[in-house]
């Protein structure tokens, strides 16, 4: 559909912090990241005519007014939680290749640490939580109130069916933390982690311990998508979108009654994206996998086809997803150890790897990379990118 016709031409990020906070509003911090992406691309704000903002900045109109996009003609917001940035990448590729827009800005971020923290507020607004009235009436009264609890139900069942172990969950945490030691921008830079540390960390919602959970962070990132033709006039070498797709679990609004309990949005989206790209998971030189919690990495590696279902635990063990392993995953440290800015930093890191700009954590000669998003009760998105 848009294979190799759309590309990412600019990326930007703010610093990530866990105290004292960004000092900016959630709109402000995303505008700051967007300015950085414009500078990277060599574009002016007035050239941006498409915006796909995360819901927390409100409507795209306000974002366009602040940034100075005088010719906004394409705007939409995906309600897919952490799957939105990669879903928006796909939508941006559709927009620029169809002619609906020339340059699409995708911003994302929040004051995830200093602002209203997810762990305290997720269940307070029925309209903001996945499932909405279903969650209010059938989950909250029983104390199922927040993401680590939802996904712990999935992890427990997977451990039961496939023998996935706590140490395998820990291997994901360790890999992300190891990569963060190579990334000065990561909030966990300078804080290495051992399996003993992992196993000693306090339980949050079993089997999830504290160190199975991502780090709530203030920060934002942004990227710009245009056509390959327009990219020729820009500052940077483009990163091509080979394929992208998004999908939903069934039912997407209810977590317990899935005939196939392990099927997520990615289960259908990944084959579609790889088919469009004309490559297989084995062709990827690295993957940036949305790692809100450790098990979600294992699950997405399986559902994306990097290994068979049930083999994800073995896949991540013994350095399998570390730099130098069979598939380096989350080379920036991921949500678990770099920063949780709603998954958009996974796109930025993929672009940096494919540009050869990843410094000490560079995957040698990286040519093809995969990035995923995961949100709500298992919404999925995926993009296959190449240099």
């Amino acid at each position, binding site marked *: 559909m848009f294979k190799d016709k759309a590309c990412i031409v600019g990326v930007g990020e703010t610093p990530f912090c866990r105290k004292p906070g960004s000092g900016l509003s959630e709109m402000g911090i995303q505008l700051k990241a967007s300015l950085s992406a414009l500078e990277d691309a060599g574009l002016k704000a007035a050239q941006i005519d498409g915006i796909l903002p995360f819901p927390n900045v409100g409507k795209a109109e306000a974002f366009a007014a602040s940034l100075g996009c005088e010719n906004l003609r394409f705007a939409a917001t995906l309600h897919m939680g952490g799957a939105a940035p990669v879903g928006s990448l796909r939508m941006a590729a559709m927009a620029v290749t169809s002619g609906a827009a020339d340059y699409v800005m995708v911003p994302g971020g929040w004051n995830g640490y200093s602002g209203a923290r997810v762990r305290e507020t997720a269940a307070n607004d029925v309209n903001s939580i996945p499932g909405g009235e279903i969650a209010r*009436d059938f989950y909250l009264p029983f*104390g199922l109130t927040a993401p680590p609890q939802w996904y712990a139900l999935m992890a427990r069942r997977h451990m039961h069916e496939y023998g996935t172990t706590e140490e395998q969950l820990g291997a994901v945490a360790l890999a992300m933390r190891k990569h963060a030691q190579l990334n000065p921008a990561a909030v966990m830079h300078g804080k290495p982690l051992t399996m003993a540390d992992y196993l000693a960390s306090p*339980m949050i919602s079993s089997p999830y311990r504290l160190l199975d959970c991502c780090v709530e962070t203030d920060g934002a990132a942004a990227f710009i998508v245009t056509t390959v033709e327009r990219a020729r006039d820009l500052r940077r070498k483009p990163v091509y979108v080979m394929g992208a797709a998004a999908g939903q679990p069934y039912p997407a609004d209810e977590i317990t009654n899935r005939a196939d309990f392990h099927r997520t949005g990615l289960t259908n989206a990944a084959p579609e994206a790889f088919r469009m790209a004309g490559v297989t998971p084995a062709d990827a030189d690295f993957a940036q996998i949305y790692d809100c919690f450790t098990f979600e990495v294992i699950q997405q590696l399986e559902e994306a086809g990097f290994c068979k279902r049930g083999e994800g635990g073995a896949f991540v063990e013994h350095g399998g997803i570390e730099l130098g392993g069979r598939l380096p995953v989350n080379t920036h440290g991921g949500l678990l150890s770099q920063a949780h800015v709603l998954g958009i930093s996974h796109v930025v890191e993929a672009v940096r790897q494919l540009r050869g700009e990843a410094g000490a954590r560079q995957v040698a000669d990286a040519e093809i990379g995969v990035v995923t998003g995961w949100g709500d009760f298992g919404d999925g998105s995926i993009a296959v990118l190449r240099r």
Partner: protein
Amino acid sequence: MSENAMPYDKPLPSLTGLHGEFYAWCRDRELRFQRCTGCGRYRHVPRDICAHCSSMEWEWARSSGRGTVFTWTEVVRALHPAFAAATPYAPVVVEMEEGVRLLSRVVDCAAGELAIGMPVEVDFLEVGDAVTLPVFRRSVL
């Protein structure tokens, strides 16, 4: 059974629409699920239409009340202020004999004793004048 005399401060379900009808049956100490009168399938959570055969005709059919533990999590750190004093507790997904699953709690069993496949049967917990929650106990069978 009912909770102690302390005011109940945890989130309560709304009692409107089909969700309210489900809880109205619970208040009568009956666990009922929608059953499609077109294809006979049970469904939960309540919905207007059968996703299998598209029939909009259905009835509230009484459940056997028996099921097995499908999965669970032990919440050690509360992530909602109303549950801060309730930890540790374990939300459990129960798979019913009718094939539907629901999120609940096993009230007579510590999390460490829970096991996938464990048989359970429904009981009812009054949490206010208007609301009774379906909960579970270990099955003696």
